[in-house]
């Protein structure tokens, strides 16, 4: 690197750091409690995807949000003399968004951990849960330690995830929804599920799922608490007073009984769980994790593209030369796969298809991305085929070439050259779209970055590392395509204007 470029890079980095610094604005002045009173409303954040019984849409009236947390918050708000107003936030972002001041408090199965205590204030517990390990009914496993070397499912950023990471030989598999881990346990895609007993009781350990058993004794015990911003001690006291009063006059027990959540554990809340409170550094181990995640991204992209190209070719040929029925089928395929989100297609392939045919996460990811991109490639090749002058086909026909020979020897080689720039485009775009497959538990580069960001308590370093890796993958690919293009272009001069 020359001195000049080094200087430019350094300046760009300074700019990035400066911009990142700007985003950490402090919340508006005045204590949150005073604002709540003035507003007459307490805004609390939860994620409806957390599902029943926490905070979820009423199946009888989806405009209505219900759950035991809704009932508890209604009671607290009443005791504070204000209205309760729930706002939807992605669960993984509850704490960062709270810190940013997007809402007053976060309340959604937030476990009291030492790590969280470092960042935000925690209220007194409103629920005592147990971490429960579920395995298949025919499994000989009796404790977490026997799952060494196996895949164990849990939700991202939960206390259960912290527990799994304390046993390095276990491979944690991260999910966003409550139901999927147990379905994948039944499908043999994972060998155990470690989650809170509320989730375990409803989604795995009950008579509806005879192929799953939940092990006794429970792995750990913890509490759900309300998250409050660091400087809102006043609000913390108000909430704690309200919760203590609800405990004393039996309202909390009444609510938990109504939701069938009351048990002996509620009488004996454990202390805040000790978890590692210091963020990880970007060390050699993490660098290696990034490199292997980049390997997964590259493998996914290459395999999916290798699938997309032949699919696209067949579809394009079917559309251009197939006539009514064949061309119509090709068009239907293209409209279906191009007109629906690839995320949906991945869900259907991985979870929707599972009861009939269980695909591995990598297979489903390659298949999903390949089928989807095949539709885009088809239109690229169709455009390229149509751009070749008619005289080429006529010359080939006059020479006695059959339609297949004309296609193979005359039209396809020429359309490849025309298709190469848009194909390169699609390839780079696929490289980035491959991050979507984290929804079916594949840990690729972007997912690795979000995990690292949580571990390191910051987005900047993992973000830059992630960006550098994507560029390191995409740049050589576009360079390769450029060279190929130049080799194919017999007359590389652009047309004069």
């Amino acid at each position: 690197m020359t001195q000049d470029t080094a200087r430019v890079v350094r300046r760009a980095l300074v700019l990035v750091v400066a911009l990142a610094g700007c985003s950490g604005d402090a919340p508006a002045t005045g204590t949150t409690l005073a604002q709540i009173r003035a507003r007459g409303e307490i805004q609390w954040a939860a994620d409806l995807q957390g599902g029943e019984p926490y905070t979820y849409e009423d199946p009888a009236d989806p405009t209505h949000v219900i759950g035991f947390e809704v009932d508890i918050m209604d009671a607290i708000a009443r005791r504070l003399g204000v209205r309760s107003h729930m706002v939807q936030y992605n669960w993984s972002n509850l704490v960062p968004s709270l810190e940013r001041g997007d809402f007053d408090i976060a309340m959604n199965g937030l476990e009291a951990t030492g790590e969280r205590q470092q960042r935000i204030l925690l209220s007194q517990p409103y629920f005592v849960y147990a971490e429960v390990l579920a395995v298949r009914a025919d499994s000989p496993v009796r404790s977490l330690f026997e799952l060494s070397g196996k895949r164990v499912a849990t939700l991202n950023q939960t206390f259960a995830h912290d527990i799994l990471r304390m046993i390095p030989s276990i491979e944690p598999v991260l999910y966003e929804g409550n139901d999927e881990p147990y379905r994948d346990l039944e499908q043999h895609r994972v060998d155990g599920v470690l989650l809170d007993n509320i989730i375990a009781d409803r989604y795995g350990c009950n008579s509806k799922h005879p192929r799953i058993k939940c092990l006794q004794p429970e792995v750990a015990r913890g509490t759900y608490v309300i998250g409050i911003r660091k400087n809102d001690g006043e609000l913390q006291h108000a909430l704690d007073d309200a919760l203590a009063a609800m405990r004393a006059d039996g309202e909390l027990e009444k609510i938990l009984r109504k939701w069938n959540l009351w048990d002996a554990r509620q009488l004996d809340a454990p202390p805040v769980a000790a978890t590692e409170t210091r963020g990880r550094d970007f060390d050699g181990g993490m660098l290696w994790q990034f490199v292997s995640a980049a390997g997964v991204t590259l493998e996914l992209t290459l395999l999916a593209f290798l699938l997309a190209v032949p699919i696209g070719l067949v579809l394009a040929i079917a559309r251009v030369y197939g006539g009514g029925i064949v061309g119509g089928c090709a068009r239907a395929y293209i409209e279906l796969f191009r007109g629906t989100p690839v995320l949906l297609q991945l869900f259907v392939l991985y979870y929707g298809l599972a009861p009939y045919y269980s695909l591995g996460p990598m297979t489903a990811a390659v298949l999903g991305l390949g089928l989807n991109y095949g539709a885009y490639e088809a239109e690229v090749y169709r455009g390229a085929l149509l751009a070749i002058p008619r005289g080429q086909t006529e010359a080939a026909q006059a020479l006695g070439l059959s339609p297949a020979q004309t296609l193979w020897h005359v039209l396809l080689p020429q359309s490849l050259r025309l298709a190469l720039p848009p194909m390169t485009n699609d390839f780079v775009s696929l490289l980035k779209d491959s991050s979507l497959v984290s929804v079916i538990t594949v840990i690729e580069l972007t997912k690795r970055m979000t995990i690292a960001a949580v571990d390191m308590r910051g987005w900047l370093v993992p973000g830059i590392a992630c960006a550098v890796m994507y560029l390191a993958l995409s740049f050589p690919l576009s360079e390769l395509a450029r060279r190929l293009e130049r080799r194919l272009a017999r007359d590389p001069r652009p047309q004069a204007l």
Partner: protein
Amino acid sequence: MIRVRKLSKRHGATVVLRDVDADVERGETIAIVGPSGGGKSTLLRCLNFLERFDEGEIEIARIKLAATTRYEGELLQLRARVGMVFQQFNLFPHLTALDNITLAPRVVRRIERSAAERRARELLARVGLADRAGAYPHELSGGQQQRVAIARALAQDPEVLLFDEPTSALDPEMRDEVMGVIRDLAATGMTMLVVTHEMQFASDIASRVWVIDRGTIAEDGAPATVIAEPKTEVAREYFRRQRGSMSR
């Protein structure tokens, strides 16, 4: 060699060819002339079935074509026996001159590469391009491209060669080299039909001249007769205009 009976073709309401009857003997060279839009190119393209027709029948190189003919083995045989040279050359831009010529022999007739290349080099020498075998079309002048196209058509060992305005897309100084090649071919006794606007060329090479106008053969006879003493008004008018443009 060629027999055309009651050949008709329409584009919607427009009649392009109307009940055309024609015969060509082996070794004849026919110059096809006439005003633009008269149906010259269409007739030529019907002869090797690049274009379908609506009524009538064609027998060419012992192969019978009718309006109902589908794409089958017979058609492939027809294309093997009838070569075509286009106004825009239509060389394959991704192949060298040599590969343009050997493609059909290798792919259609399954001739070995070495044999096909030996023959292709002979043909290139014959059209005066022995040293340009490795050139891509964009590296050749228009006249050179058209000569490669002629060599490509000859590589099929056709019994009939069709030329669709072979010099119209060329600058005047390149026409001579192409016309020279066609002239030499005529001398070898190849059966040829040439659509052209070059009157001198037509009278030099043709055994007969057809004047085609509004979908019919208006005049058919030896060049000396047809060009010097046209019987129809349309032919007189056409030749007068051609001479006018030549003298300019």
